[in-house]
């Protein structure tokens, strides 16, 4: 039996009916058309599906949609301000931290959750926060550098 789900995504309230076994990822992508959040492993291992739920980075493929009822969810679609990219997005471009781009939304969401909580995160803290996000292309160096660049820009240090 489908169950009503109320959820706030990127500042917008939604009310939909979902099957109890549906994941937050399925609801985002298939019901709401928010395909920026990626599905890869679907077993919690790769981090491509990372979103921010009430301030915390989580893997949306391992969360029941109904468990996010009443929550504030931020996805990659919620970061840019109209045409102005979020500083982390911009830094990923500037530092060439994107190759195929499939891991990028998840990487950026993990980085955002970290910098929101700890705006002065060190490189080691950045790498620890991105540990649950796999990238098969870049080798991580440029991703870590991009997050540091974003950190320094937001911080007004450069």
């Amino acid at each position, binding site marked *: 039996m489908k169950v009503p789900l109320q959820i706030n995504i990127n500042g917008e309230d939604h009310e939909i009916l979902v099957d109890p076994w549906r*994941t937050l990822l399925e609801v985002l992508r298939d019901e709401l058309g928010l395909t920026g959040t990626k599905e890869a492993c679907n077993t919690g291992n790769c981090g491509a599906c990372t979103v921010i*739920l009430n301030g915390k*980075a989580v893997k949306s493929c391992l969360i029941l949609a*109904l468990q996010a009822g009443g929550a504030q969810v931020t996805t990659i679609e919620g970061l840019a301000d109209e045409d102005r990219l979020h500083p982390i997005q911009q830094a990923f471009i500037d530092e060439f931290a994107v190759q195929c781009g499939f891991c990028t939304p998840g990487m950026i969401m993990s980085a955002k959750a970290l910098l929101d909580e700890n705006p002065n995160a060190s490189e080691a803290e950045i790498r620890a926060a991105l*540990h649950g996000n796999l990238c098969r292309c870049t080798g991580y160096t440029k991703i870590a550098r991009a997050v540091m660049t974003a950190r320094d820009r937001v911080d007004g240090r450069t």
Partner: protein
Amino acid sequence: MRTITYHEPRSVDEACQLLAELGSEARVIAGGQSLMVLLKQRIVDPGHLIDIKRVAELDHVRFDGGAAHIGALTTHRAIETGQPIRGKLPMLSEAVAKLGSVQIRNWGTVGGNLAHADPAGDLAPILIALGASVKVVSARGTRSLPLESFFQDFYETALGPDELLAEVEVPEPAEDVRACYVKESIRLGDMAIVGVGAALAIDENSGRCTNIRIIVGAVDRTPVRASRIEEALRGALPEKKALRDICQDGVADYHPLPDIHFSSDYKRTLMAVLIRNVLEKLIYGAN
């Protein structure tokens, strides 16, 4: 067509009532960080899901009566970063930091990790080493049992179909107790190939080891004790050089379960090495 009825109790009483009515028809879900994969693959396919994530009374960390009372819904991340637990049980915070990734730790719970009873789980070895017990509730009442006897087989615990794991109780270690957990895994945060939790005290005057407990995960169906090594060290003044032999002899009787990556022999060798590393660290402060 799949049918699952979803229940969202807000109190322990309500959850216990549902479990009493539905029993093995129902499955409890906490963080789902282990259960979701099983649900997707239909290895677990219950008629009812009882989502306890909003039972606020299960989400607490309290220190009283000389023990930490950790509610089943406490997230791994809260144990890793929260005070006062980091201050009073730093070995537990450090052990949890080795589990999965930030995302998993943000949503996964202590109760779910223990109730899942994966023999490679990271929390059981250090918690058993610290002498933890668990509080289990049901509509029939409340009972407590040592965590060591909670695990019964692969993914099997002492929980009845109508029971909920409510709390883990960890005695506050005495001043002279030293404890830690070490784990070897393919990559940081993967499941343990072998994990060792140990606690011991060093007598201030004699320098001898007392109250030693060594618990090894991922080698058998449940966490096991390295009893022969415990015995060899109890009351002893072990020399650093002797530890190697004590550990090698002490694991000789074990036949660790192999997995797709690692043979039994490899795991036994690793078991001896990790136990020695832990003991050197605890006794001599070496890393």
